[in-house]
């Protein structure tokens, strides 16, 4: 019967305690590891604190508001979003021509932020100029239109929202994994 292909003589290589008990303890390494552990726990606490503040979305730091230069339209949105997590952008139209209300949203809102729904449903949607123009029948002002997003991938996206032909609002949204 053939023996094993490779062999090596047994050597006493494991570090001993009191020259009698082979343990392999390495206190120098362990002290370094404890220092590393402390640093990691500080990092963990920092991550939790940043998350509570909204640095990774879903918190006060993530919430943002922008207003068009003519003060006619204002939008509340999240400047930091999370992949696969729904979010809402609320656009408030204060002044507009009598009828109807029109809102332009750039294509990046769909391709980057994963625009899922517009509430209320627009009367018509026109495609062109690098985005979509939604038309809503006008009621009393201010009118509120909500856009529901669900980003499909991490990245930084620039979206444009506003009344077509008027002052547009440019937003930068970071999507974290």
């Amino acid at each position, binding site marked *: 019967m053939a023996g094993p292909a490779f062999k090596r003589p047994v050597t006493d290589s494991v570090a001993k*305690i*009191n020259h009698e*008990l082979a*343990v*392999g*303890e*390495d*206190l120098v*390494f*362990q002290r370094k*590891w*404890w220092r590393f*552990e402390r640093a*990691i*726990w500080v990092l963990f606490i920092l991550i939790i604190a940043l998350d509570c503040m909204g640095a990774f979305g879903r918190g006060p730091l993530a919430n943002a508001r922008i207003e068009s230069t003519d003060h006619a339209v204002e939008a509340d949105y999240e400047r930091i979003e999370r992949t*696969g997590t729904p979010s809402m952008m609320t656009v408030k139209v204060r002044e507009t021509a009598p009828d109807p209300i029109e809102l332009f949203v750039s294509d990046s809102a769909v391709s980057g932020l994963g625009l899922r729904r517009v509430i209320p449903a627009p009367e018509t949607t026109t495609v062109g100029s690098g985005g979509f123009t939604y038309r809503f029948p006008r009621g009393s002002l201010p009118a509120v239109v909500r856009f529901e997003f669900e980003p499909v991938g991490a990245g930084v996206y620039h979206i444009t929202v506003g009344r077509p032909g008027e002052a547009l609002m440019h937003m930068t949204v970071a999507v974290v994994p």
Partner: protein
Amino acid sequence: MSTIIHAILGYFALLLTVRVLSRRPGGQLTLYEFVIVFLIGGVAIQATVGRDHSVTNCFTAILAIALMHRLVAWLKDRSPRFGAIVDGTPLVLVKDGNWQLEVMRGMQLDPEDVMAAARSKQIGSVFSIKYAVLERNGTISIIKRNES
């Protein structure tokens, strides 16, 4: 593809988190430590598979984790230093009848933990322990003092 990346990232994130937790796996787990195991596992799986609950997706995630495990095992075999980083090294808790307080505090262990291991070896008194060693797998080995 994203599942594989999530599985790889999840594997190393879990490895780091479990490694920096106190070394008390397996038979040394107390009830409150079970909470950690269940919660971390449950949370990690959601981020790994996402909304794709297909057999294909779950299978690729399992394969990715298995490959990572194999890679870490291979690296451990090749590099003792890497092995020490992943598994730690054995640590002496009691030497010649003296508690090694630096190690006990560093590993967040109490004399009760050592005595629990001693009792399993039919040792009822701390004075009968010559060495107690916290092994890499979290168990505590007890070497009895020679009474003669």
